[in-house]
């Protein structure tokens, strides 16, 4: 089994087929371009009683252009903190984040966030919600209306453009939130357990849909989840996090063919990945 799991201590090693090809094509000379480069990330929070608590430590990783990378770990391991650091919503205590070669000091127009809850504004229609980032960025709504409707069509919400969020089911609301992120045409999608609140069936459907959308739009995705199966099913690479304080236990490459469907979950290879990842997420040493 050891030989089966391809660890990637050197990140220039081949990744999943599609992204490796895409990345090398973009780089032109066979060297993948890092869209995100995190170096020595450390995040501590002050506590009410004494001193501070460490949420994340010693985080070094890269995410390449066009890649789908998941971060998997137990709840409370700092996954969401990591996403906020990468989104520029929180400053790192020490360490740096580079987005597309430039150090990140705040929210970037090249990255869009999909939150745990859909966060749709109830007084706006679906279309107006989707166009909200356009308004925030001071761009002309009229120029993005057509592409917003096209994206709504892609996720099957074209007929609901003029409806209000309370008329939509949970899954539909989260799809609208995804469109709201995509309408900004970001290079990087940061997704923070976006399907965590959905029931298991809807969640599987949303996973398949997300892969379809990803393959069409070719965005780079960083996907936070606490589900090992979800991480393996979706990703080119999986970053496994240890419990608090969160650090990287391992980064593994998922060598499963694309396009994927749910039957892949029953393959032996998929099971090996699950068996390898599960102990990593528990306390150090893998004893659970």
């Amino acid at each position: 089994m050891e030989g089966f799991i391809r660890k990637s201590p050197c990140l220039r090693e081949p990744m999943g087929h599609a992204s490796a090809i895409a990345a090398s094509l973009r780089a032109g000379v066979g060297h993948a371009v890092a869209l995100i480069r995190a170096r020595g990330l450390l995040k501590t929070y002050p506590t009410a009683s004494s001193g501070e608590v460490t949420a994340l430590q010693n985080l070094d990783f890269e995410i390449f252009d066009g890649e789908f990378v998941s971060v998997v770990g137990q709840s409370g391991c700092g996954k969401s903190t990591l996403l906020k650091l990468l989104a520029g919503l929180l400053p790192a205590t020490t360490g740096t984040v580079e987005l597309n070669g430039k150090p990140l000091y705040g929210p970037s127009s090249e990255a869009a966030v999909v939150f745990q809850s859909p966060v749709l504004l109830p007084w706006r229609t679906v279309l107006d919600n989707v166009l909200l980032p356009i308004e925030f960025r001071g761009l002309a709504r009229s120029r993005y209306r057509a592409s917003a409707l096209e994206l709504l069509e892609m996720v099957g919400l074209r007929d609901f453009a003029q409806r209000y969020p309370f008329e939509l089911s949970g899954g539909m609301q989260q799809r609208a939130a995804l469109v709201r992120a995509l309408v900004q045409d970001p290079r990087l999608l940061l997704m923070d357990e976006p399907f965590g609140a959905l029931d298991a069936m809807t969640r599987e459907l949303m996973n398949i849909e997300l892969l379809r959308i990803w393959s069409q739009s070719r965005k780079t995705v960083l996907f936070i989840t606490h589900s090992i199966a979800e991480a393996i099913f979706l990703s080119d690479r999986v970053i496994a996090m240890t419990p608090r304080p969160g650090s990287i236990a391992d980064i593994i490459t998922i060598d499963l063919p694309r396009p994927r469907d749910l039957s892949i979950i029953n393959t032996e290879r998929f099971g090996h990945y699950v068996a390898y990842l599960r102990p990593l997420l528990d306390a150090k040493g893998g004893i659970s």
Partner: protein
Amino acid sequence: MTSQAVNMREIEPSGPPMRVTQGGIVRRYPQLTISPAILAALLAGWWLACNILGAPAYVLPPPQEVLQATVRGLSRAPWDVAGYWYHAGITLWEALAGFALGSALGAFLGLILSHWPILGRSSYPYIVGFQSLPKVALAPLMVVWFGFGLEGKVFITAIITFFPVLVNMMAGYQAVEPERIELARSCNASERHLLTKIIIPSCLPFLFAGLGVASVLSIIGAVVGEFVGARAGLGMLLMQYNQSMEIAPLFSIILLLAIIGFLMNHAIGLIERRYCFWAQRSRVAART
């Protein structure tokens, strides 16, 4: 996918659709059946107390006398000082002007003090101190400051209506979902956009709750202002009838004040339904 949408009929305030088809007219329209029945019972009890139990007319005037006094007062022209319309108009004007001033200031300050916590925290002791002061105790002072004109009544009404709106606006600000603010920040929203597109609309349900309370309090402010010294208004009329022991017209003024208060509150409710329709619907949708 269409079946996933929440059925519009399910979120109507009249209750789930099963009830609509089952229950009789009483269940469907309690406000048109039970409410008038309560009124009839109250009137019958009143009539009984006066005509059968023999309550003296200077304590409880019989309903027919109150009706006569009301008809007599309302049959005069609106500019006739001896009629009710003139005085009702004065009182309503004082109440509305004070309400507009007080609630506008309350909403504005509530927003400012919440958005810039330094301002809020430094002025908090004064707000609490002034809030715990019984505002009607200031009414005699109004005569000293403003004389017997309308300004004093508008001023005391403004002070009384200011607090419920301020307090509700601050509560509304605290209740803005942090995810909504994070969404705006992740899109690099300006401070102005954050306020106008996220925070102020989010506060609207709380603001309207405050306005509903303030609308009723505004009548109290105007009437108390007239009690301590006025040349016109329903409060002044009330004092006159009280001193001359004309109890039947006094009762009709009380009724009139109740009706004005009810109508003002109802008007606020109508405006709320126009601009805040999403708040109740979202709550109902979240429960189903």
